[in-house]
């Protein structure tokens, strides 16, 4: 069942997860399709940016541990 995913880093799952959350969240806030897509794209980038920042902080804190 998991053989296909055995060599894939688990962090890649963040991409579809963040995309789905961004799309659904913004779809529940706006009605116009163009606005939903633009806002979702911005949120998607924002989520990844924040996660990357957290990763960076954790990496720095655990450096040479």
């Amino acid at each position: 069942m998991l053989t296909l995913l055995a060599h894939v880093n688990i962090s890649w799952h963040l991409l579809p997860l963040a995309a789905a959350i961004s799309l659904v969240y913004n779809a529940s806030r706006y009605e116009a399709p163009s606005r939903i897509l633009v806002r979702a794209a911005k949120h998607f980038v924002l989520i990844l940016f924040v996660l990357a920042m957290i990763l960076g902080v954790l990496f720095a804190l655990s450096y040479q541990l």
Partner: protein
Amino acid sequence: MQEPQVNLKDPWIAAALAFLVPGLGHLYQGRLFKAAIYSFCILSLWAYGMYLSGGKIFQYRGEPGKPRTELLSFVAQCGVGAPGIFANIQTRRYRRLGEQPTTSLSETITAEFEGIVELQQGDEDLDEPVTGAIELSPEVGQFGDPTIIGRINGTLANGQQVDFMLGEGTRLGPVLRNSRRRAVEGEIVTQKDGRAIRSGRLRDASIPRSFWNWFAVPLSNYEEQELHRELGKYHELALVFTMIAGLLNVLAVWDAFDGPAYGYGYDSESDEDDTDLDRPETDEVERQTVATSA
């Protein structure tokens, strides 16, 4: 308060449909774009979480003394709607039927069979996998108690056709279990002078379990530990995917009931950073509204 620009039809029906199947409420309201987003995103997350766990992540046993955190995750998963209702029904059935193996039948069962047959044939032992069909029948045992006997018509790995009798005391696994296969245990007997003589036994034998009897059925403690051992970190990943799918559907249900959270006015207060390109013209909004209402 702003006037709604999309015809929400009956909000209660829309919300109920959106809860049962993500996107269905919006389809009912004619909001096709949103229906596509909700159904694709939410159902994909939920289906992927289920795929990762082999369909075993979505269940709740609810035994006294069990950590409440499991209840919280189950409630989040239930947001996805129809499967949540189904899981609650399965939990009730599980509490009623329990995990007892089946030692008697009310009617004959015929099913596809696979398992290993261990036979003692003089000096030579047979220990081979068998696939075929099994027929299990109710019987009254020698002490007057109900029991199960059976017959296997199958094929050995080398293609040889075989026919085995299963004696009294044949047992089936529990009716409900979160597994697609139902175990069969029993002794192989041969008739000699009108008496059943034990000549072997079944090992790792099973018949298919119906979808109704395995999907969303609570796991036992042992099965849950096995699932953790088998999946490792993917257990948490599957749990997160299904939980988030359920929670996102709460947003979709509310949208179906009450429209978009920020209204229809595209007010400028919250959109100061937006360019004019992603701000729909008033005429465009009105055209969409008319089209949707029609």
